[in-house]
């Protein structure tokens, strides 16, 4: 089975120059954790996810200090959250993006998701344009269908 058979073709995306806070609001509204970032030429340039937001508002050293418990949230978090209003998506997005081509096998995409720890992967055509997006959910649903299991 190819990924193009199970991917979602209706891709919501944001532009690199979009406002970070507005994009975050969009994520909340859509109840998803990330969106692809596509520039004016239709080229995929990054992924904007809740993880990037967390990384930008938490102290940058938090991953290096081991157990460093803040009982009260540090003041910097409040300031950095407000700062999102002045930031563009391009300043926060992850630029190393994992993508697959539409002819990739579903199993291969599932393997990439597991090994690279990503939830959703943009799908490209031969011209490197985004033609869809595939999430873990789509893959599991396709397996369920194959097993003739009806998910309520």
């Amino acid at each position: 089975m190819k990924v193009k058979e199970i991917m979602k073709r209706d891709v919501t995306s944001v532009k690199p120059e979009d406002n970070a806070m507005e994009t975050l609001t969009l994520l909340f509204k859509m109840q998803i954790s990330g969106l692809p970032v596509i520039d004016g030429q239709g080229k995929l340039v990054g992924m904007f996810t809740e993880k990037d937001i967390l990384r930008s508002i938490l102290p940058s050293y938090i991953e290096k200090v081991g157990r460093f418990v803040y009982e009260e949230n540090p003041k910097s978090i409040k300031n950095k959250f407000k700062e999102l209003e002045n930031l563009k998506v391009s300043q926060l997005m992850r630029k190393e993006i994992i993508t697959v081509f539409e002819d990739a096998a579903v199993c291969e995409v599932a393997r990439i998701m597991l090994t690279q720890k990503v939830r959703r992967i943009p799908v490209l055509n031969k011209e490197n344009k985004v033609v869809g997006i595939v999430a873990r959910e789509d893959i599991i649903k396709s397996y369920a269908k194959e097993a003739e299991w009806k998910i309520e």
Partner: protein
Amino acid sequence: MENRITLKFVFLFSLLILIGFLSQRMGIQTQQIIALTIFSASVFATLLFWEFRVAIAFLGVATLLVTKTVDLENLMKFASLEVILFLVGMMVLVGLLKESGLFAWIITIILRIKNLTAKKFVFMISVMSALLACCVDEVTSIIFMAAAILEICDYFEVDPTPYIIISILTTNIGSAGTVLGNPIGILIASKSGLTFEDFILKAFPLMWICLLLTIILVMFWYHKGLKKLDEKIRDSQANEFLIRLISIPPEKQLMLGLGIFGLTLLFIALHHRLEILFRLETNTLLLSLPLISAGGVMVWKRKRARSYIEKDVDWWTLLFFLLLFAKAGTLKYTGLTEVLAKNMVSLVGSNPKILTGTLLWTSAIGSSILDNVVLVAAFIPIVQSFGDLGFALQPLWWALLFGGCLGGNITLVGSTANIVALGILEKERNIKMNFFRWFWVGLTVGVITTGVVWLALAFLPFYK
């Protein structure tokens, strides 16, 4: 981007060809030229190609072997696996300490100072930076100090820059205090036969003198900022919020981690006496104790053992060190360091005081630009060659240690601690350090502390 890298590589190769050409004109033998050129490539790689340095080290070592500049057996000996294993053991222990929250617990001690004043604050962060750097490595210690300083300065709404600078300066000074503070400490101990006790008796007090002098100097240098902090402290009455901000209850795991680390430090401190007692070779226990503790930790935390080795050990840096030591050893193997040592003696004369001074200042100035491990690795075989010429080596080892650590204060890229802490400052507060804002205070502290060490090494018979 690609063009810039190509340009840098062209520059590097031209420089290496120039070094080769000049050394040939000076009458140096072919194998010595190869060893020198390949070692120089590593030095320039740390300056120009940080991301390629391990690749350049791989290629360099392979070239040394293929050109028969050194044989496999000696290359393995020079790689100083004992130093690498010591650092691996310490990194695993530090991993355990991080995970059990030791550092956050230490930071709460600063936050709980009663009747906080700006001067007390500066004294506390300076002494803690220095002592933390003495017990663990300087990079781990500076991350925690920088984190604490940023939180405290945020709370009082003052510019954190002077306090970050103070903490970096004192971290670099503190890293000379014991064998554990800096990779060059264990490197020198392993090559010189100096023991932990020697470091405690000779380097530690000298480190304290440098530290106290620096504290006085920075209090004077930043007196305006301190006055402002004093006002802010008075306005906010008490530091209740700070006490609540970071809090780690001393749990069982923390106490155990602390116990293991404390015991390791105690045995490391006694290693020389134990080695005499058990008739072991000098420094056998110094190098094996971190392995014993790390081994114990990995039995205790067997599920985490792989993660300690894979995540807490900085293999990238260690592999670079291993190959660097191999290349530095080859300099001596080819007889080049002997030539250099003789030239140095003929240049500065055979007065040991002048030689010590030259080595101290050269290594201080050198490590203000270069990674101090690269510099010390290059100087160790030269110092060993001075021994063959009949010089007393102890003052030279101390000169190398203090030069390598104190020189890191002179410029903002002088040591890894500087780069890490200023990186945090930039990321967290958007404050980009200006070269000269650092340089003047760094140079003053660097010159005064190196000057004090110079006087001590030259005039105190204790250091002979």
